Structure formats: structure tokens, C-alpha cells
């Protein structure tokens, strides 16, 4: 019997991509398609005195120019149902006030993208600039308000507040106070955002093809902003060129394109350019942690307090709200360590910069960095081995399920095993010798670790604790076998590079005893799939794949019944494998599964009532969440003369439970680690004192190349999760989460003898030399 789950199956997606036949939004423009270009604010803070579109309308090739007023001033308001949260409106096209450079104020509709840009230049806006708030300190102090009449602190949550903490800090053998910061970064999918909207008279709906991770949320956003029923909107995500969170929120441009297509009754396309993507989409991870931690003489942590501030930019993104980073950080900071007493305050502060959205890892790269730096600091001060101190603090085998001070229950993981294996592997591979060799060459060199777990697959039970008005979590799959015995699966998740067409097929194929090539996944279309929440937060395989497995299982049950009837055996004796329904222990009696499907559809009268009328099932999954875990190690060299920092070796021991497809899992780990190294060493979104972006090109925002990213060695452990239908745990973000801390620890190891210590990312060459 062939088991597809666990097999290194090459991806079904590859062929069309390799042939150049992928279909991305920008590929869809037809001859009659109009092109949209957005007029954007050149100022970080200004009121709009007037917008004059008359000259723009006269530009050759321009058909129309629309302002917010022309579209009925649509807006979105993301809401967290908590007193500590202040909702703010995000206008789809700002009519009176702009709050960051790049904010859209009007849209030009033209016959091609060139003319659209000509038109954009010709729109005359009279601005009156206002005071700017550009960082956390200014946002806290500011009398200036990013949103009139609203405090700049849009969310202020004290989640845990152990009354005994101050006494613990006062009495402890070691109390560490430290501040950790991470720069604002951008997800930078290689395909920017892109939307094409057209009106369909036959279905009386606007069809929005958009590069999104969350088609249903996008439909809800468009419907809410435009005040139309959801059925009037159909959102379709074709091939999506990466997202990493940037496409898991509803874009203002998506709503505007839908409105424009409805108004003009012509297809309209907008393909974001790179400059817009870097400045006017969404950013993430600009955070500061002021932390106090107490340790006993053996290095056991006694208490932890954190004041977490997040620069969330100008708006609360829809529907996640600006609380997504502070909430995640404050809830999950303790991570894999047994912290007996905890206090956390998390704040989201509005500034005159682009809004932040969930970016791969969402606060976890930062909280892991905080905890892993604290372990290193405590180890150094107490003279304990830095690996040993982690062992003393982490949740150990036998302690699972473990409920932490943050009230989170951690399912079984391999925290200790992954650390032990990492240490063994790098020692065997001669990393320490290599470090010495580099040092002899005159380079500084260091080895760094990070140990962590990440909660993945947040279902409604977990998400509802956040109290979002729109609470994501569950997902629903439909599995249908057709008369030829082939299967179509639909899911509300929406893969965009993760290989879901392959991995979902593997899961379903195993349940039904067929080949994955006989399974086709349909996703990313709100008219074809049940309401679902899309692909983000490492949720798809556990929730979407879990639902698909349940639905496939139900169909398998029906097939067994049919086979039992036709073969005149007991249902429990029927086995589905290798394309046939066989009978346990009777090797020569079997029927092709395709034959069962044929009979069900074409000769349903041959079957008893309960076996008739199709082979399909719809099931949902809504788990509480499950923790995957990993240990990262890296060997870093630092050139003492140029400050150049290189990650030279990288090793990951990861445990995501049952692996559906090792090829895909390794790819996710490597891509994630590359983004983590990028955040640690290369990338930062910057502004000048007026709030003008100074990293608006890929010459200034340094997405690393194949030279900066080293080979990444991966080892797997498999601790299945009881909360997951497939036993698998989510793993799309782990690479990004663990890598920055490991790199930072390695840099600090390299520089330890100089008495400098870095607690920020990215560490730039310049930092090393100053």
C-alpha cells in the first residue's frame, strides 16, 4: 500500500511555472482592460485643501480620474472588541487628510499603465503639511495626533500582571534589564500587489482577481467598504507570487479597483510597482521591548516583565487590526521557557508611516530574540554554559502538555531533543574548529543558537481570545469524486508557493487509496469554495489540510460502503489502496475505485439508498493550535575592518510533527531562514526626518541574494500533534522566527571579547566598527 504522506513528491505546481504558463494577475490584462494608477501623498502628514483632476482628465490616454468622493468615500474599520482598543477609520481614498507618504488619494483610469502614470502626474493636489510623528518615542510623547481626537496609542493591553514580580526582581541573584529593538521591514514578495476587477452582468457581481492570501476576507472587506452584499463580489486569487503576510490584509487598492470596475463597467487592472510596494503597502516588525528578568544562581528564570511597544504606522489594517503584533508579543513572549511569574504590557502606537500588517512570524522573531538574548546574558553573568542554561529553563520531556504562566497549553514538542541534536551535529561537523580557523585568519567569528516553538494553526478557540470583530480560525474543505474516480478538493486556504496543490493531494490520496495525480485542489475562489480564512499564520496544512482529510475520510467511508455492497463483504473489511477497493485478507477480490465511482453516478439504482447520489463530503477543522519547534544554529564571521557580517553556516533541527512532503517542508525552512537572516543583517525600512521613505528602491532595501544566504542544513524530528487531523504542525514561519536570534547571538559571540553587545536587528557593518 502506497503512502503518499511523507513522500518527497515533486510539486504539481512546478510544471506550469517552469513553462512560463503560470497565471498571475498582471498576466490577465486584455486589450480592453483599463489600467489604474494611484495618486499618492508626497507628505507624511498633510490636509488636502483641494484636488483638481481636470488637467489629468485631458492627458492623452486617460479616461477618468476618481476621488474618494466619487466613490462615496468608502472606508474600512478594523475592530477589536476590547476597551483598550481604539478603532480608527481607514478611508479607501483619503479625501481630507493623509497620514503617510504613499497614501492613495485618487485613482487615474487610463488605456495603459504608461498613460495612467502620465495622468497621475497631472492631478493637482493642494496640500497643507502638518506635524509628523515618526517613531515610538515621538508617538508616546506626541501632542500631535495621527488621528484627530484620538490618542496615538491605539491599543494598550496589560495581559498578565503577577503582583509578586517586583519582590522577585528585588531579591533575585541576578536581575537583568535590557532593551531590544527590531527595525521596520517589508515582506517584499517578488510579485507586488496586483488586482484586476471586472463587472459580470450575467452574475451581477464584480469579479476581483487579486494577488491575495485571503480571498474571502478580501470579499468581506470589499462588501463592507462598498456596502454591498457579499454575493455581489467574487474574489479570485490566481497564481500569487509570494505574500508573507503583505497580502493577508485587505488592500485599499483592492476595494478601489472593485468600485471603479462597478462604476465604469469595464475591466480595470492595477499592478503595483516596486516603489509603491516598498512605500505604500504594509510593513512590519518595528518593535521595542523594555525587559526585566530575574534569575537564580543556577540560571533558572524566576520572573519576567516586558513593556512592548510597536510602531504600527498610520492605520489599523483590516481585519486584523493594529493589535496583532502587541497581542502576539505579550501573549507568547515566554516561549519554550518555564517562566514562573510574568507581566506584559503591549502597546500599538500610531505614526506617520505605512501601516504594519502581520509579516511572516508576527512578533515571534522578536520575542524569540528577547528570550534567547536573555538566556545568553544570564549565562554570561552567572558563568553557566549558554546551552546548559537553556536546558535548565525549557519545558522538558515528560512535562507536556504544559500550561504556561501565559495560560497557553503547549502540546508535545521536542525542545530538548532538538537542542541536543543541534549541538551534536555542529560539533561533529567541526563548527568549533572552523570558528577557530576563521579567527586565526583575522576574522571575528561566532556561533549562535536559538531555541523556540511557534504556535501555529490558530483556530477559533485561540483566535477568539483576541476578540476581533472578524475572528478567523476554522476552515472548510469539500471533497468530491467524479464518475471517473478522480477527485476535486476545495479549500478556503489559499496557497501561494507552499505547494498546497501537491500536499493536499497527498493527504486526500492516502485517505481514498488513489494517486495524488487524480486529486485536483481548487482554492482561491470565493464562489467555488466555502467561507475560509486563507493562508497565513502557518495554518493551511493543519486546518485546511485537516478539513480535507476529514472530508476525504467521509468520502472513503462511502466508497467502502459501496464496495462492501458490490463485493458482498463487510464494510470494515474493505481497504482502499492503489486505486482499488480490496478485501482484507482476500488478495484476489477487488474493484477499481473508478468502477465504484461509475456505479454510484451512473447506476445508482444498483445501490442501497445510503450509498446513492454522489460521492462528496464537506468538513471543517477548527483546532486550538499546535506548537511546532526548532533549534537553529549559525556560524557567523565578522570582518573587523569593513564590519562585513556573513552567515557562513546554518543548521536547523525542526519538528513540525508529521511531514506531509519533505521537499516542501525543507523549502519553507530555507526560505524562512533566508528572510530571518535578511532581517538580522540586511533589511530595514527607513525614513528621513520629514517621513520621506529613504528605502524606496531595491538598491536601498537590501533583499539578500544567493551570495549572502549560505547553504542551510536541515534535520527533522517528528512529534505528532494530537490537535491535528494529520498529526502535522504548521511550519511556514519557523525559519523566519528563529534565524534572527541565532544570528544575533553568533555576532555577539564573535564580538564578546571586545565587550560590545548588540540587542537590535539588523546589525549593520557600521555598527561593528563604531
Amino acid at each position, binding site marked *: 500500500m502506497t503512502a503518499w504522506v511523507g513522500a518527497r513528491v515533486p510539486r504539481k505546481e512546478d510544471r506550469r511555472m517552469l513553462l512560463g504558463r503560470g497565471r498571475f494577475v498582471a498576466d490577465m490584462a486584455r486589450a480592453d482592460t483599463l489600467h489604474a494608477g494611484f495618486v499618492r501623498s508626497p507628505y507624511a502628514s498633510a490636509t488636502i485643501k483641494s484636488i483638481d483632476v481636470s488637467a489629468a482628465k485631458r492627458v492623452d490616454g486617460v479616461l477618468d480620474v476618481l476621488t474618494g468622493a466619487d466613490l462615496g468615500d468608502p472606508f474600512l474599520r478594523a475592530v477589536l472588541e476590547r476597551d483598550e482598543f481604539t478603532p480608527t477609520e481607514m478611508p479607501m481614498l483619503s479625501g481630507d487628510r493623509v497620514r503617510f507618504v504613499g497614501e492613495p488619494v485618487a485613482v487615474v483610469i487610463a488605456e495603459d*499603465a*504608461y498613460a495612467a*502614470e*502620465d495622468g497621475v*502626474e497631472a492631478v493637482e493636489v493642494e496640500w497643507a503639511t502638518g506635524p509628523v510623528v515618526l517613531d515610538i518615542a515621538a508617538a508616546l510623547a506626541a501632542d500631535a495626533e495621527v488621528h484627530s481626537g484620538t490618542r496615538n496609542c491605539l491599543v494598550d493591553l496589560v495581559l498578565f500582571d503577577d503582583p509578586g514580580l517586583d519582590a522577585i526582581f528585588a531579591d533575585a541573584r541576578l536581575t537583568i534589564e535590557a532593551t531590544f529593538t527590531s527595525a521596520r521591514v517589508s515582506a517584499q514578495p517578488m510579485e507586488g500587489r496586483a488586482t484586476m476587477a471586472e463587472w459580470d452582468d450575467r452574475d451581477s457581481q464584480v469579479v476581483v482577481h487579486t494577488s491575495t492570501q485571503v480571498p474571502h476576507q478580501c470579499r468581506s472587506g470589499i462588501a463592507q467598504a462598498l456596502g454591498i452584499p457579499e454575493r455581489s463580489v467574487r474574489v479570485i486569487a490566481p497564481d500569487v507570487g509570494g505574500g508573507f503576510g503583505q497580502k493577508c490584509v485587505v488592500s485599499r487598492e483592492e476595494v478601489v479597483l472593485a468600485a471603479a470596475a462597478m462604476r465604469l463597467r469595464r475591466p480595470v487592472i492595477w499592478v503595483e*510597482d*516596486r*516603489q509603491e510596494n516598498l512605500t505604500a503597502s504594509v510593513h512590519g516588525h518595528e518593535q521595542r521591548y523594555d525587559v526585566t528578568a530575574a534569575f537564580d544562581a543556577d540560571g533558572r528564570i524566576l520572573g519576567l516583565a516586558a513593556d512592548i511597544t510597536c510602531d504600527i504606522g498610520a492605520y489599523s489594517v483590516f481585519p486584523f487590526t493594529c493589535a496583532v503584533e502587541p497581542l502576539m508579543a505579550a501573549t507568547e513572549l515566554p516561549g519554550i521557557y518555564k517562566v514562573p511569574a510574568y507581566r506584559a504590557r503591549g502597546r500599538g502606537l500610531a505614526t506617520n508611516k505605512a501601516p504594519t500588517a502581520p509579516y511572516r512570524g508576527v512578533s515571534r522573531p522578536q520575542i524569540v530574540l528577547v528570550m534567547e538574548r536573555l538566556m545568553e546574558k544570564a549565562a554570561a553573568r552567572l558563568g553557566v554554559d549558554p546551552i546548559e542554561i537553556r536546558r535548565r529553563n525549557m519545558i522538558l520531556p515528560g512535562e507536556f502538555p504544559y500550561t504556561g504562566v501565559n495560560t497557553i497549553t503547549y502540546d508535545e514538542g521536542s525542545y530538548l531533543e532538538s537542542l541536543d541534536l543541534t549541538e551534536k551535529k555542529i560539533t561533529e561537523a567541526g563548527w568549533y574548529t572552523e570558528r577557530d580557523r576563521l579567527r586565526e585568519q583575522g576574522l571575528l567569528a561566532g556561533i549562535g543558537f536559538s531555541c523556540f516553538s511557534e504556535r501555529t494553526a490558530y483556530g477559533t478557540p485561540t483566535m477568539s481570545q483576541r476578540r476581533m470583530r472578524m475572528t478567523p480560525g476554522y476552515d472548510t474543505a469539500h471533497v468530491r469524486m467524479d464518475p471517473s474516480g478522480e477527485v476535486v478538493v476545495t479549500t478556503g486556504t489559499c496557497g501561494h508557493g507552499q505547494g498546497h496543490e501537491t500536499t493536499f493531494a497527498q493527504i486526500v490520496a492516502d485517505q481514498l487509496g488513489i494517486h495524488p495525480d487524480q486529486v485536483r485542489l481548487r482554492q482561491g475562489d470565493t464562489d467555488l469554495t466555502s467561507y475560509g480564512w486563507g493562508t497565513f499564520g502557518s495554518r493551511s496544512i493543519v486546518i485546511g489540510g485537516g478539513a480535507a482529510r476529514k472530508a476525504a475520510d467521509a468520502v472513503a467511508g462511502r466508497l467502502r460502503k459501496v464496495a462492501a455492497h458490490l463485493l458482498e463483504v463487510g464494510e470494515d473489511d474493505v481497504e482502499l489502496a492503489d486505486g482499488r477497493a480490496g478485501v482484507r485478507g482476500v488478495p484476489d477480490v477487488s474493484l477499481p475505485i473508478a468502477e465504484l465511482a461509475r456505479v454510484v453516478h451512473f447506476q445508482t439504482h444498483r445501490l442501497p439508498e445510503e450509498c446513492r447520489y454522489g460521492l462528496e463530503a464537506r468538513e471543517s477543522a477548527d483546532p486550538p493550535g499546535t506548537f511546532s519547534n526548532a533549534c537553529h544554529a549559525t556560524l557567523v564571521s565578522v570582518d573587523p*575592518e*569593513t*564590519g*562585513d557580517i556573513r552567515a557562513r553556516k546554518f543548521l536547523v533541527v525542526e519538528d513540525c510533527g508529521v511531514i506531509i512532503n519533505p521537499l516542501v517542508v525543507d523549502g519553507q525552512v530555507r526560505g524562512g531562514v533566508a528572510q530571518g537572516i535578511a532581517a538580522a*543583517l*540586511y533589511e530595514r525600512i*527607513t525614513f528621513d526626518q520629514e517621513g520621506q521613505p*529613504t*528605502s524606496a*528602491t531595491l*538598491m*536601498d532595501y*537590501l533583499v*539578500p*541574494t544567493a*551570495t*549572502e544566504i549560505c547553504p542551510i542544513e536541515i534535520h527533522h524530528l517528528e512529534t505528532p500533534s494530537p490537535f491535528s487531523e494529520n498529526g502535522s504542525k504548521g511550519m511556514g514561519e519557523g525559519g523566519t522566527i528563529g534565524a534572527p536570534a541565532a544570528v544575533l547571538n553568533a555576532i555577539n559571540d564573535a564580538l564578546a571579547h571586545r565587550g560590545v553587545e548588540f540587542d537590535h536587528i539588523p546589525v*549593520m*557593518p*557600521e555598527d561593528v*566598527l*563604531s
Partner: protein
Amino acid sequence: MKPAAFTYHRAYDVNDTIAQLAELGQDAKILAGGQSLVAMMNFRLARPSALVDITRIAGLDYLERDAQGLRVGALTRHRTVETAKIDGFGVLSKAARWIGHYPIRCRGTFGGSIAHGDSTAEWCVLAVLLEARIVLQGPRGRREVPATEFFQGFFMTAAQPDEMIVEVRFPKPAPHAALTEYSQRQGDFAIVAASARLDLTEDEVLTSRVVLGGVGQQPVVVDADLAGQPANEETWRAAGEVAAAQVDPPSDGHGSSAYRKKLTAALVARALAEAAA
């Protein structure tokens, strides 16, 4: 990021280019490899009214080694220099590797780089280091400008808008020359580039010249004469310190002035060591 409208003109020889530039007026520009110009046009930071495409001009793509030195045709691609073996000018082929990436080098031209006049550009720095002469042709005829006078400021050169660079002449071979640089990411423009040329015996420097990119508005000649000094690591390091003390580099997102000074010290020492090797 779509360029503003312009009219496109193709030139088939140098005279044709000059005539068309004259006719099209001040806002017309030459289009060579386009690896700087088109990017700037896509950002609409450059908006020429007309472009004269010179890439079809035959016979301007050459590397000619003669008794005097080396003549490089304006349309010689970076990649051609990279893959050539030019006696006495190995420094050019080696330095080409620092220019962007393979596809950029397949398209970008020597003349375009000199005309663009980026202070960190490898060809600009080396032209000053090796005291090249830039050959220009215009409505007033041909003229030669020493590279040391050609680069006049931030993306400003001695070439007039109606002139075309036709050739760059390197007067004498430089067997002991090197260029090195630093950028955080491979292929990017240097934050600082350092180049050095030496004449030396086994153990002593006879003459020296050091030129830097990325520390001023144009390539900067360091005032340091190493003649008579021992050809060793100590001399190179000291020269690096001297160079760093002389420059007053700009600050930007890629590095502060102070950082560029430190890079200068390190890179000058490395360039000298490489040149001596």
C-alpha cells in the same frame, strides 16, 4: 514606474549621432546600454525628450592594445572587458567583476559608465587612477579630456550635451594595479571603492597612485606619495590611514561619513597589497 514619453532615434555612425543630437536639442540624450539611464527613466528621475540609440553603431566595440597603451571603444560592453585578456591591463578585467551582475555587464557599456559619471563606478575610478583620456566628439570636432578633469561633480562631467564619448585611452600599462571595494550585498554599487597603482622593485615602492570612489562627488585622488617606502603591509596600512584622514565622505543610507572613512583605510590598504602582489 513607466517612463515619460520621448521620441526614439537610431544612429548608425558617430557623425549621425552628433547631427541628431544637435537637431533634437538640449533635452535629447544618448542611449547606450541603458543600464543606468532606463532605470532612471522608469523612476521618471530622467525624462529626456528624445533618445539617440547608439548601440547600432558598428566599430565602437573594441579593446585595442598598442604601443602606447589601451584604447577602449565607447560601446565595449563590461562583459567584453571582463572576459578579455589584455596584457598589462589585467586590472580592468578583474575590476569588471565588481560591476553589477552578469546580465548588467552583458549590456552596459564602457562609454556609458564614463558618461554617467557615478563616483563609485569602477570605470570612472580606474580612468582617474590610470590617467586615461576621454575622447569626445561633437559639433565642434574631436577633443580629449584627461579623466582627472573629466569628472566634475555629482553625476557631472566635462562632456557637453551635444557631445558623444567615442573612446577611452589608457596611456600606459599598469601591471601593478588593483581595485577593491565594499558593498553589503553582492553586485551593488560600492559604498567605498579603492584603487591603487604601483611601480615597484622587489621591496621598494618607486611610484604610487591611489584613487577612491564613494567618498566624494567624483573619484578622489589621494595625496600620498609612497615612493621610497618599503613594499610591505605596514606601508599599505599607513597609506590607508593617510587616505582616510584626507577624505570627507558623504553620509547616506548605505553608510555614514565616519563609516566610509574607516572603509577607506581598510580598502586602500587592501588595494595596495593586491596591486603589489
